[in-house]
């Protein structure tokens, strides 16, 4: 890294990605089992190991940011979702696993870390964008089914995949910023 600011951006990006991974993990589990009881603490504990990571130069900023994200994570997890979708949940869990898996190597500036970062994030964005298109299709279908009948407005419910998509857009930062990843730890 050329300067400390870049390093700090990298560390904060990794913390943010972990935050996304934690919410994905939570909602993935909720969708998989169909209820949220006992799962909420998952959001808080998922980010806990980050505070003990090595290769973090700006330790205090990183820990504070992580704690802040854990609180935001917890608040987001209060959003009520009553979806039982085994495969939808599995998809979020896979994206979450890939993102968590990237953390350590990305902090060490290894390409293998960035590879998981990219694929995990893109999978999350793909899940999100597909859910947005599906939501639009459902709204269209609702109004087609209403032809000839008296219907109210579409009962809109936003799946977590959709807001995760918008949160995920912020994690695209590394693509606009050239990190000097190296081949291996010297």
């Amino acid at each position, binding site marked *: 890294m050329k300067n400390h600011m870049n390093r700090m951006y990298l560390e904060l990006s990794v913390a943010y990605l972990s935050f996304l991974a934690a919410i994905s993990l939570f909602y993935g589990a909720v969708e998989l089992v169909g209820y949220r009881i006992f799962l909420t603490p998952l959001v808080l504990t998922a980010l806990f190991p980050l505070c003990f990571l090595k290769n973090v130069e700006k330790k205090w900023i990183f820990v504070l940011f992580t704690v802040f994200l854990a609180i935001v994570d917890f608040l987001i997890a209060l959003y009520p979702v009553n979806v039982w979708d085994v495969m939808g949940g599995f998809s979020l869990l896979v994206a979450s696993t*890939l993102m968590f898996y990237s953390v350590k190597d990305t902090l060490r500036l*290894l390409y*293998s870390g960035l590879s998981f970062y*990219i694929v995990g994030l893109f999978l999350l964005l793909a899940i999100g964008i597909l859910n947005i298109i599906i939501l639009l*299709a459902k709204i269209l*279908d609702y109004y*087609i089914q209403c032809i*000839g009948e008296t219907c109210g407005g579409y009962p809109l419910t936003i799946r977590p995949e959709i807001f995760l998509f918008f949160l995920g857009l912020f994690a695209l930062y590394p693509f606009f910023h050239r990190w000097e990843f190296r081949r291996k730890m010297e």
Partner: protein
Amino acid sequence: MLIALAGNPNTGKSTIFNALTGAHQHIGNWPGVTVEKKEGHVEFEGESIKIVDLPGTYSLTSYSLEELIARNFIIEEMPDVVIDVVDATNLERNLYLFTELLELTGKIVIALNMFDEARRKYKINVKRMREILGLPVIPTVAIKGHGIKELLQESLHGNFAPKGMEYPDDVERRIQKLLKVLEKYKVKNPRWHAIKLIENDGEVIKKIQSIGARDAIHLAEHLRHEIEDIYGDDIETLFASFRYSFAHGLFHEVAEPINVGGVTLTDMIDHVVAHKIFGIPIFLVIMYLAFNFVFEVAAPFQDAIDLIFNGKDIAGGGHINGLIDISYNWMASFMPNWLASFINHGMLRGLGAVLTFTPIIMLLFLILSVLEDSGYLARVAFLMDRLMRKIGLEGRGIISIMLGFGCNVPAIMSTRALRNERERKLSIALNPLIPCGARIQVFAFITSIFFVSHKAVVLWSLLLLSMVVVALVGFVYSRTIFKGRAEPFVMELPPYRLPTIKGLGVHMWEKSEGFLRKAGTIIIGAAGIIWLFAALPWGVEYGSQASYIGQIANFLAPLGHAFGLTPEALISLFFGFFAKEVVIDTFTVLFGTKSAMLASMTALQAYSFLVFLLFYTPCVATLATVYQETRSWKFVLFVVLEGFLLAIFFSFLVYQVGTLLGVGG
């Protein structure tokens, strides 16, 4: 004996040359040019060997003098062996030249130079590389003199059974066509000349013109334009990309990066999607997302088409007439009732049913085209190859199995590419167990009616079941009926690219067109025939027990009890033997409405039916192709029996276990 040393610049070629020849060198110029020519001699195991160091080049086009010298030497002097000196630390890039050398000669020894440095970067499986290429591969460290003796030993006694690089089918067919013309003119290495002519290589064109083979030049020009039209790119870029894909695939087969450095986005994505542990879950998620997208996005379009054709009953009374109602009322006013019913309730309803599923078909092919054009499907083949290798089926067999998801007929025909007869037969035997596009359409139809909230999961589970069964059956067959060792081969991995809208549109249309054409002919015709079966003999109530279809149903009914298959389901399976899409017709003609279909079966029965449909006998066209490819009625019978046994087993299992657990009742 004459040995030529070829390789990229800075691969240590000269160091190897020096180590091989010692002081016995002669330095001069290549005839007519100022490019340095180095020759040397070595005595080894009583053999006098002349070694020529060719100029270092990255490829063998005709753009530079060095490239021309190198390739002309191999073509004209025909060295006994070419040692390709490869910089093992840049293996993938160096393999590009190897793909070109392979077109010139099959007597190649690969020297993996700087192997000590490369080991810090990748884990290179030399044994696997030898197996895949069928050529000697020697790790060398030229500056330390390691591997030099082995190079000479392999040059003298090595086993050369090269497995050449093959181009995509549509390119390969054209190369073969030109090859036949060139063979008449007795040119040395006609395949290489054919490839270069198609590639528009100026030097080769001049050479072929000089021997008066004008027909070959004209044909090459024609074939070149055809290939450019198919792939939408210029010929040089295309051939370079085919060779890079081969090199990339070979690299992934033999090298495992320890620390990935200097990588492209393609490498980074491959690092994850072709990962041993994560590859399969990612594939499952992508398939699920794809199916979910197809069903959910198609739904409003399907409902709109359904509304147009069938109209709808309004809650609280009333009915909106659809096209069928309007047309029937109009026709019944001037023609016999039975004829109006035949046209509208038979054929028009059949057409409506087919058109209702057009959005699903088009979206399905759109998403498959996205996966294919982006390069992801090649990775799926790579992933599956690694998995299936463990259970007996390898290489190109996987590709034919994957083609089976489109249509079993071309998939079975594609097994011709397999060199090993055992693998070919194994692939043919497994192919009908893969649900073709037509079966997937039927799955889409049934799931959208019986599993409204779990459509994607149901379809996904069927595909997963099919893959698991193919894997298990392949495992059993490869250790019993089709016993033997499978051929290793290089799976080509093209770089990832963003699909173009035009490309997607063309591919989607090409694939959907077949379905729509069938819809306009066979399927509407079949709908008419099924209507006749349901309406005859004259005077019986339409679709009743007394009709022909009712009588067939009564006859078949006892067979279906153990599997939860209703008489109507059995009839549809019977007609599905002719073409799987006809199952949709049968349901539509027999029941007319979705609610009638829903009332006829429980969800468990519907799932048992789908499982039966997944495996039972393939359609007539597929069986005819199996016969054509094997020339054995016994093999055809084997395929039919295999399908029925698996269908009976799994359908019985699903229905009985489901009933015991009280699921889906």
